[in-house]
């Protein structure tokens, strides 16, 4: 093992020896769509300005493809310099196994506790009072993106909430549009359902189901209403035959689809396509029903390394990612909200300002990644991808299975 590590180290040293002097730090992430790539380039630029070298380790195919690669590299003894995970419980066991670097000292020196808001973000990084990751953005799932053009073509006004949207479905269909675009990846279907819960049944039900894992509520009448709404969503999305989330967003951008339920990262795509919020597209936080947002997002974890140069570079990267300037430039491109409350976001567009307002009011819920283990999320994915593609699976039957998953969650 040791010799293999040495071999790897020398091989990588050889490969990058031309850039001697600066320390190379490989950073793995799954940001590959247009808007995401533009955002991550901001990180790279800021990091290279410190005299180090950013080795981009983008892994295509989304988080579900990338995470197994990242985890197996860390547990297999060839860790990268830094890696993305979603803020929450995804790296929980890696931290517990002592594979991740502790950043408590840096956090205290730079007063992360005071600048990062909401506090739940840093709590997600904290295990036994020690800080193990750097939250870089706040992403919320609770958005309905609507194409103004599609509604114009169908001759109906742009809806202002979920019910109006469902009512507009037949008109959209008649105009040859897909009312609701959902990609074939399973996390998108689960995400859609998880957005419907707080919008239809309210914040308390959401927390009871996912925070307390209360199976009775999950089997109860409130969630039954959510399943009815999901049934509507299923009917409206029956014709969308794309895979990736950004392809689904693209259907909305080009006016082929009426809307999409997707997190605020979709905003990056609208921006790359040169669309203007309010004119070309409309965003409804909380589906226009319950205006609240979840405070998930992405965090960077730093595996323990032997090389002292790289260890020093990790520290530089961590503080670069949190610096006010990088936070603004990165998050504007990404469509997400900065984790620092003390930065200037006047350049933000309408949709992002709506998000900031809701955040300031404190109408927030934790992200499902912070509440559920990957195991539970994966079981939910299996259920919802089947539900959305199988008209024969009734909402009642699906709810029974849903309650069973919640009951077994830990």
């Amino acid at each position: 093992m040791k010799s293999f590590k040495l071999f790897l180290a020398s091989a990588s040293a050889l490969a990058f020896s031309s850039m001697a002097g600066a320390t190379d730090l490989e950073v793995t992430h799954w940001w590959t769509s247009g808007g995401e790539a533009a955002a991550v380039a901001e990180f790279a630029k800021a990091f290279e300005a410190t005299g180090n070298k950013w080795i981009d380790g983008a892994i295509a195919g989304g988080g579900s493809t990338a995470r197994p690669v990242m985890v197996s590299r860390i547990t297999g003894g060839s860790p990268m310099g830094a890696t993305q995970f979603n803020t929450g419980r995804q790296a929980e066991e890696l931290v517990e196994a002592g594979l991740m670097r502790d950043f408590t000292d840096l956090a205290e020196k730079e007063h992360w506790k005071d600048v990062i808001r909401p506090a739940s973000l840093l709590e997600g990084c904290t295990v036994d009072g020690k800080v193990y990751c750097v939250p870089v953005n706040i992403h919320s799932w609770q958005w309905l993106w609507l194409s103004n053009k599609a509604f114009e073509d169908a001759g109906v006004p742009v809806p202002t909430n979920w019910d109006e949207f469902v009512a507009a479905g037949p008109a959209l269909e008649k105009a040859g549009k897909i009312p609701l675009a959902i990609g074939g990846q399973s996390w998108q279907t689960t995400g859609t359902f998880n957005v419907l819960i707080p919008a239809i049944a309210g914040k308390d039900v959401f927390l009871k189901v996912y925070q307390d894992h209360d199976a009775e509520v999950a089997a109860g009448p409130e969630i039954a209403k959510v399943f009815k709404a999901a049934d509507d969503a299923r009917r409206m999305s029956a014709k969308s035959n794309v895979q990736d989330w950004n392809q689904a967003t693209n259907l909305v951008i080009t006016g082929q689809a009426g809307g999409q339920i997707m997190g605020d990262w979709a905003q990056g795509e609208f921006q790359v396509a040169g669309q203007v919020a309010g004119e070309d597209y409309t965003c409804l936080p909380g589906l226009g029903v319950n205006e609240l947002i979840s405070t998930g997002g992405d965090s960077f974890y730093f595996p323990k390394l032997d090389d002292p140069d790289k260890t020093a570079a990790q520290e530089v990267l961590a503080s670069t990612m949190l610096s006010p300037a990088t936070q603004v430039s990165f998050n504007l491109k990404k469509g997400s909200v900065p984790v620092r409350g003390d930065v200037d976001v006047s350049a933000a567009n309408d949709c992002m300002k709506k998000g900031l307002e809701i955040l300031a009011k404190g109408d927030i819920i934790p992200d499902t990644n912070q509440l559920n283990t990957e195991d539970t999320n994966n079981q939910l994915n299996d259920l919802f991808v089947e539900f959305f593609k199988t008209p024969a699976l009734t909402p009642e039957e699906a709810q029974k299975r849903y309650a069973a998953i919640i009951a077994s969650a830990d």
Partner: protein
Amino acid sequence: MSSSSGTATRRPSQMFRNLNAKIASIPMILTALCVFLGGTVWTIVYSFTNSKLLPRLKFVGLDQYERLWSAPRWLTSIENLFVYGILSLIFSLVIGFLLAAMLDQKIRFEGVFRTIFLYPFALSFVVTGLTWQWILNPDFGVQHLVRSAGWESFTFNPLYDQQIVIYGILIAALWQGTGLIMCLMLAGLRGIDEDIWKAARVDGIPMWKTYLFIVIPMMRPVFITTLVIIASGIVRLYDLVVAQTSGGPGGASEVPAKYVYDYMFLAQNLGQGFAASTMMLLSVAIIVVPWAYLEFGGRKRG
């Protein structure tokens, strides 16, 4: 095992016969014992634990198996494997044998045909899967072609229909694998003595009868080898599904190997993945052990 070691103690000379060969095979024996057997035992032991992302020895009895057999996705996977397995076994053998029998008629350009039929085998499952994903895509593939030729209502989109998606995967698998089966069969046919054919002709037995009642029974060893190759291909079906449908639409084309991978690495639940892979091992053992007993046990007696 016990009988052979008993022989060894009675006649120690047996143990030291071909000593060099035995020493030379020690590395392979160790590999087999440590890696294959050790890995298998380790997996089975940990399938009784609640290991999540990292393995840990906290036993939970049969919990993982109970969850496995009540998971709708696992049941779909088993059903798919069953349908795919039986059909791919039958069609590979029948098509492979028919192609081989046709090539065996001393036709012209035999080499060319053989190469054409065997060529898909040179492609990996991922490439095969992607190619067939395009061919079966309703917007660019066969359906589009037939519709643009004038038959507007023609519908052929197996990969987008839950009921028949597994057949879409079967088509790709047969296209890829039948060539190899044909070659094995052809080798078997060439091994049949020319005199048998002459004798059959003298007796006036029609050709199909000669194949069915004389040649095929004589090709038994070839059939068994082929069977093992096909069967191992069935159980490890994974990459083709990932490339063609990634389990969709709506999980209708899930297979057990994909369940194992997804739960071990995506869901960070090693225990569940190990339980599923142990069930796969068990199903292989149920098929292979009786067969091996009949095959090798019988030979020893004879």
